């Protein structure tokens, strides 16, 4: 068995077990599967199952999300189809698949049809480098976090393709807002990740998890705050959902889509929070590590926790205006992320190879800095954020 060179066979026991299962399978004394086929089959099976698990979890997630948002708003949520409405996603899927797929006149057909695919691929690709548990990952890329940043950016191209090809002004508005928002929020997001990278000393997500003696959420509170804001802006989740903005732009870039093409856009938007929660639990909350329970379950619980926080924020906060979103990115998050990066770099410079005590000292300093900075900069920002263009003064009528 060891004669064939198998890349990352040593690194990934998840993969190796699957490979061995195929390669060592004997049938009447002969093993009918050659090594190259076992390699291919194992790879295909793992990728296939991960993609499908992601999509199935997301489908169940839509139900949970709608039920929870209902409860957040003192409603019940979908409860008609199946016990507690559990079959609602099935009904949705059947409805979307059986709906007429209309293509409006005057659209750019190639781009129009390609956009949903370009939009849904990146959120699924994120799961290629996420470690789901100990030794459970598809690939341990040495540039894992960079891969995630690069790949998620492609979503915007899909969004802009959809908005542009629709030949609808609302769609184009939505798409252009999306591009502007992503370009703005990419900067603080990446800068907040750099703090993590300085502490971990590696871009690989597995290494980042193993480098967390204490979870990075304690060491990087400001970085976490910036990251969660920036990533919900990247996903166009609710306080930052000016891209879709149902009440202004109908549905933004996917106004003209129908049937399963529209469903693909929706699916991608529901996968994205799971991806974001997976990234956050990996780089901020020690990923799969935890006592007693199996590592995969720990990872799933952490993902659920962050997903719930994203959902909670979505259920609560109203949408920001376009200028407020831009001001938040450039005047608030960008300086803060620079400061966070500077402080972390200084700490890493002073305490090279820190002990536990030094790490906790670092955490204390960072928390103090985070709270002070948030108070000071929100004080500086708060009146500017709410400034509106001056209204025409109403002439005073009589009286005193």
């Amino acid at each position, binding site marked *: 068995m060891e004669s064939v060179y198998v890349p990352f066979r040593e690194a990934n026991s998840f993969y190796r077990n699957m490979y061995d299962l195929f390669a060592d399978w004997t049938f009447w004394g002969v093993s009918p599967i050659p090594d190259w086929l076992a390699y291919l089959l194992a790879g295909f099976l793992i990728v296939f199952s991960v993609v499908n698990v992601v999509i199935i979890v997301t489908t169940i997630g839509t139900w949970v999300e709608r039920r*929870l948002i*209902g*409860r*957040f*708003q*003192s*409603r*019940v949520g979908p*409860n008609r189809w199946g016990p507690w409405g559990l079959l609602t996603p099935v009904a949705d899927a059947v409805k979307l698949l059986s709906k007429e797929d209309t293509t409006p006149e005057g659209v750019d057909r190639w781009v129009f049809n390609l956009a949903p695919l370009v939009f849904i691929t990146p959120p699924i690709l994120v799961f290629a480098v996420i470690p789901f548990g100990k030794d459970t990952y598809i690939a341990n890329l040495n540039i894992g976090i960079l891969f995630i940043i690069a790949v998620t950016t492609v979503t915007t191209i899909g969004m802009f393709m959809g908005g542009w090809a629709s030949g609808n002004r609302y769609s184009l508005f939505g798409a252009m807002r999306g591009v502007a928002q992503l370009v703005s929020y990419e900067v603080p997001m990446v800068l907040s990740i750099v703090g993590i990278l300085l502490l971990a000393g590696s871009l690989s997500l597995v290494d980042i998890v193993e480098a967390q003696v204490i979870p990075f959420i304690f060491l990087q509170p400001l970085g976490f705050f910036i990251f969660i804001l920036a990533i919900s802006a990247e996903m166009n989740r609710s306080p930052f959902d000016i891209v879709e903005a149902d009440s202004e732009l109908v549905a933004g870039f996917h106004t003209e889509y129908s049937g399963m093409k529209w469903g693909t856009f929706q699916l991608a938007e529901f996968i994205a929070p799971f991806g974001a929660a997976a990234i956050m639990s990996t780089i901020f909350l020690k990923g799969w590590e935890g006592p007693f329970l199996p590592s995969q379950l720990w990872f799933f619980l952490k993902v659920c926790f962050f997903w719930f926080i994203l959902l*909670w*924020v979505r*259920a*609560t*906060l109203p949408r920001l205006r376009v200028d407020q979103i831009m001001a938040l990115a450039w005047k608030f998050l960008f300086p803060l992320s620079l400061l966070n990066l500077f402080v972390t770099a200084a700490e890493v410079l002073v305490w090279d190879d820190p002990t536990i005590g030094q790490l906790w000292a670092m955490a204390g300093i960072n928390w103090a800095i985070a709270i002070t900075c*948030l*108070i000071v900069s*929100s*004080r500086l920002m*708060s009146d500017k954020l709410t400034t509106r263009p001056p209204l025409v003064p109403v002439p005073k009528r009589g009286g005193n």
Partner: protein
Amino acid sequence: MYGLGIAKGLSVTLVNLFRKPFTIQYPEEAVPQAPRFRGEEFVWYEERCTGCASCAKFCPLGIIKIVTHPGGTDVQEGESYAIDVFDIDIGRCMFCGLCVEACPYDALFMGSGFERGVYRRDDLIITVEELKQAEKRPSTWFRPQLEAKNYRPQTAEPLSWEEVGR
């Protein structure tokens, strides 16, 4: 200021999460109706009606159509008319109840139904046959004698024509 408003908002939604939802699952459960509810099916007692057509005259929309001929056999005092046609077009009715207020013999009452969905406007016209056959559970609206009896049209037994007079 300082994001405290956001924290406050988040706490409000979190409290909602653990509270019973406000929704009433309508077809399975319903809010209790008032006995004075002015509903869609009218309750009409043929024995009490003299065919005076006060209701038709007072209807601001003119949707009550009454055709009579002399020589009816009703039990009220005065001249008696037999009712041939008593059509109420509730598709145009606004349920003001002026017809019930106008009835001098307590022959017409409001009902308490509200779930009459049909596919054609013509099906919304209540004819005299329908009025005769309907279960008589009058709403207590503008009928103090029914209120004095503490009558609940949603739950109580139907009333005969002797029981509804003043």
